[in-house]
């Protein structure tokens, strides 16, 4: 309950002046803007390194310039995604170069018969059915349209993972609130799919087209 002193008006000379109050407002405003726009994104994502480095460029050159030499369609129309150890082993049973990462690959994975736990930049959540066949064969799209120039890269970039959702940052894109450029090819959020579908096919598509 209230006390007697509360009921007395505070003398004016004991009160902070208007501009001091405004400065405090500004301090609050600027501090929150800085932490929200700069600190928060850094806190939200953890950075992970790929288990071994991989030179796409060299592989593309060696394998005849085609992505589908390693990322191919299976007979049933499903997309193979990352090559399995067996597929890698067909060339890399023994070192083909002096590359330290190749050595590491052979020592730690080939010899131990262990799959490489690649971190997949464009990995979609389990509720998504993404048909590579529809895009690559049906719409005759290039891999790079969505995946950027990863085929020309000589080294794997770091992988950023959203600490809350567990998804790759490539899905949301690198800008916060979808502001700014999408790095590394296109963003892969539903809106991005819908946007392109609307443009190319005249419809965002039905839910089941891409969900399972």
């Amino acid at each position, binding site marked *: *309950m*209230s006390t007697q002193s*509360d*009921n007395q008006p505070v003398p004016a000379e004991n009160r902070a002046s208007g501009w001091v109050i405004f400065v405090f407002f500004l301090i609050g405003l600027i501090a929150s803007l800085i932490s929200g726009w700069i600190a928060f994104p850094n806190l939200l994502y953890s950075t992970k390194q790929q288990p071994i480095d991989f030179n796409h460029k060299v592989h593309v050159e060696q394998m005849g310039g085609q992505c589908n030499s390693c990322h191919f369609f299976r007979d049933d129309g499903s997309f193979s995604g990352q090559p399995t150890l067996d597929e890698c082993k067909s060339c890399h049973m023994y070192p083909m170069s002096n590359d330290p990462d190749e050595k590491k690959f052979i020592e730690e994975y080939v010899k131990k018969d262990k799959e490489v736990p690649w971190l997949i930049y464009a990995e979609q959540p389990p509720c998504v059915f993404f048909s590579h066949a529809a895009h690559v064969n049906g719409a005759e799209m290039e891999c790079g349209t969505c995946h950027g120039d990863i085929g020309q890269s000589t080294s794997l970039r770091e992988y950023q993972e959203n600490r809350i959702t567990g998804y790759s940052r490539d899905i949301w894109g690198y800008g916060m609130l979808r502001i700014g450029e999408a790095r590394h090819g296109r963003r892969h959020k539903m809106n991005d799919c819908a946007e392109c579908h609307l443009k190319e096919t005249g419809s965002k598509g039905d839910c089941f087209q891409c969900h399972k």
Partner: protein
Amino acid sequence: MTTPAIPEGVKRCSTRKFAIWLAVVGAVLLWGVYAMFLVWYKGLNQTGMNDAYGFALWIWADLAVIALGGGAFFSGFLTYIIGKKELKNVINYAVIIGFICYSSALLILALDIGQPLRGWFIFWHANVHSMLTEVAFCLSCYFGVLTIEFIPVVLENPKLDRIPFLHHLSHNLHEVMAVFAATGVFLSFFHQGSLGGVAGVLYGRPFAFREGLLIWPWTFFLFTWSAAAVGPCFTVMVTWLTEKVTRKKLVKQEIFQLLGKISGWMLLTYMIAKIADTLYWAVVTAPSKGFALMDFYSNNPVYGIWILIAELVVCGLVPAFILISRKGRENNTMLITAMILAVIGVCINRWVMVLQVMAAPLLPFQEWYMYMPTWQEVATTILPVAYGIILISLAHRYLPVFPQEKELNPGN
């Protein structure tokens, strides 16, 4: 004992007595809050709902409190738009009751979804065809309006009123209150209606389904009409209860009678429409879907024809006739009884439009589905009642809710 936090010239109970009162009600509130967190943490398996009862006690409570909270918009409509200035004497209380009802409804809605953290999808990914979307938007907006309407009442607390900024804010808000009242009426028309639409559009549920006008089933209009009719009854009923608890007269009897008269005519016209709707449904709609009227009122332990009679006659026509007759209104017991009956009637209506819809079997080889709420559901449904009592207690104690109180209780 008067402290400056309490409005001038009115008598309030001792702080100690008030604290004990709050503690008792607070205990009930805490019980509800515990159940609420249990539901949020463990999920809806804490309820007695099942796949036959996707909607149950909570949705009923939602529909009921929103109907009863209709007093706020309808009193506002009468006061600010029709110009029944004498109703200014209850409008504060009507707003507070409305605020309690609507905040409770929102709370229950937040409980009643399987994925509360995705609750905002209803706004962000809204399906404009869904009555529930309409409900969510109108309900939230109207709750905003109610909050704005509530603020000046709060600011009239003597202590707050001393702060010049707040004093001026309060004054200016009062000036534009008619605008908000009008907005509130508009929004209320739609959300009360869309709540009616929630059941009425279910064309796969012959018990609920009603033909309608354009995209709105008749229940859309019936719900709005009944909320307008019964909302003021609930306001009077709560005021009357407050008077009983505080043991003093807070609002003049003429006001009660005026509201009773308006409610009575509203109720009567509503009942005429409701009976016409029921007849059309029983004679045309239900048979077209293969059901005779009695299919919905037999072969089960609860839902007999009594419920229809209770809703339409005992809690519908009877209170309507009492309220439209001068004699009925002038007898306080009759007046209050009629209002309580009307309140029960609208609660029954909301109950059958939710629960009986779920209970009635559709395929001939299925039986009636029965449902028993768990204590968690009951506790969370009582939670708003406790919360309402606390808010009303605080409001009554610290805010000048009833302008006529000083006049009616001289010598304090």
